[in-house]
């Protein structure tokens, strides 16, 4: 069993190891036949060139910007909505709940074409707005948070209300701190999803300066022909942040993705 596990793990790691290996080779050695793992002159040059070029860093910057913006907006908007649905009664509440369920069924993939047309109509195609705003709509997140709020005992809230706190205050000072683990899960899930999202960002922007990392990497070519070591170094650099995040926040990430 142990041997089997080790073999499987090695198979799973070889593609990554080979990528790293290629990225460390001098460009002239990358396409040599037969293949060899160790060649003279291995160095971090390719990584250096990726940094020097700046393009990949700009895409990573865009990814970070978009990821943070979507995450912040999602957490803010969905937690407010979840609180409202869990703790208040208003006309149309059941309609909103039904909308949420309906929204979960809609695959974002079927919206790409009309959504692009809408961005064109609004005049925000090819802007950060087009990248961020449509990605904020995650009805499932409202659902997750609502379930969490539903589980918070009413007594806590009533005590606060007696102390004269308004609803916004109850939300901000009582519920949000209580919901920290759930919010963290929502935030991490949203960030990971946004960071790795391909299809919508691919549709939303055409300007290479606005592209997120996955889109830029797949779309923009080098004018000087394919430089394998450099391309794979860029791929590793862009793939690294989330893996590092995984190592740092293993437990939270696992809970988030399970949720």
């Amino acid at each position, binding site marked *: *069993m*142990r041997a089997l*596990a080790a073999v*499987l*793990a*090695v198979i*799973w790691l070889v*593609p990554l190891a*080979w*990528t790293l290996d290629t990225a460390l080779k001098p460009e002239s050695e990358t*396409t040599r*036949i*037969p293949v060899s793992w160790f060649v003279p002159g291995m160095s971090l040059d390719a990584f250096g060139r990726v940094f020097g070029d700046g393009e990949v860093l700009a895409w990573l910057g865009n990814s970070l910007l978009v990821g943070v913006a979507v995450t912040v907006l999602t957490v803010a*908007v969905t937690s407010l*909505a979840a609180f*409202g649905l869990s*703790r*208040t009664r*208003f006309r*149309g*509440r059941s309609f909103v709940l039904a*909308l949420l369920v309906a*929204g979960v*069924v*809609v*695959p974002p*993939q*079927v*919206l*790409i*074409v*009309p*959504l*692009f047309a*809408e961005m*064109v*109509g609004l005049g925000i195609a090819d802007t950060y707005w087009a990248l961020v*705003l449509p990605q*904020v*709509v995650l*009805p499932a997140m409202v659902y997750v948070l609502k379930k969490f709020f539903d589980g918070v005992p009413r007594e806590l809230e009533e005590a606060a209300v007696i102390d004269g706190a308004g*609803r916004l205050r109850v*939300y901000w000072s009582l519920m949000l701190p209580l919901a920290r683990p759930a919010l963290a899960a929502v935030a991490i899930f949203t960030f990971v999803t946004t960071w*790795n999202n*391909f299809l919508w960002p691919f*549709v939303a922007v055409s300007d290479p300066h606005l592209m997120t990392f*996955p889109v830029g*990497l*797949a779309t923009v070519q080098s004018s000087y022909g394919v430089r394998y070591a450099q391309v794979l170094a860029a791929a*590793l650099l*862009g*793939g690294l942040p*989330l*893996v590092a*995040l*995984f190592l740092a926040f*293993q437990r939270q990430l*696992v809970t988030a*993705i*399970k949720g």
Partner: protein
Amino acid sequence: MKRSGFWFVAPFLVLYVAFLVVPMLVGLGASVTDQGITGHAKFVGGANYLELFRDPAVWSSLWHTLIFTVTSTPAIVLVGLGMALLANRAVPERWLYRLAFFAPYLLPVSVVVLIWNWLYQPGFGLINDLLTRLGLGEVGWLSTDGMAMTSIVITTVWWTAGFGFLLYLAALQEIPRQLYEASALDGATPLQQLRRITMPLLSRTHQLVIVLQILASLKVFDQIYLLSGQGGIPGVRSIVQYIYESGFTRFRVGYASAISYVFFALIAVIALVHFRLTAEKR
């Protein structure tokens, strides 16, 4: 006070309406026009819907999507389950398994495709190099439709098995140790334990993983589009890719919207059937 509840929901609702309801309506409107990419449109009635049922590319891309789903889903589920069973054992290198099995899932699709494109290369690709060393012939991993689909499935399994792995691992950890200890006292072998304790207790997870995987596979676009050289192998084109190409490569926003709607109906039916089935069981 009565209205204040609504204001909590309002910001979300605004975004929901603007970027989910409105595009649904925009798409519905566009689907009965000949709208092009620049927005000009003329009403054409049901012409787009009639056309798509006769369009061989619609059927072939649905077929590719189906093939992808039925081949990748079992592989991903089985590999994910196997990984979880292997990694759930109390061994010191457990963290390494978790990292190895789960790391690929955290990579953006374009990174995954670059890596595999590199591995699949003729001549200097690692896989073909290995085959040559073993005395087997090279395989043109991306050169024929059939092989390209196989390569896409292999890549997908490597990339996403970690998701099933994680769900199974979590489910395994919830099974009380005492069950195993008690059965061990009764003389049960590990294989018997697997069959009588582990598998029955995982049945809900199976269902969850399989359903999530099927729904995700039907919506596949990224890795097929990118691994086939951005649409360069029409023989593996998925339905979402055909929607993308109709709308943005052939500039037919109206037609693409009509296909989107039919595809959406299909997904909704599958989701409903699943919902019905699970509702009856409970």
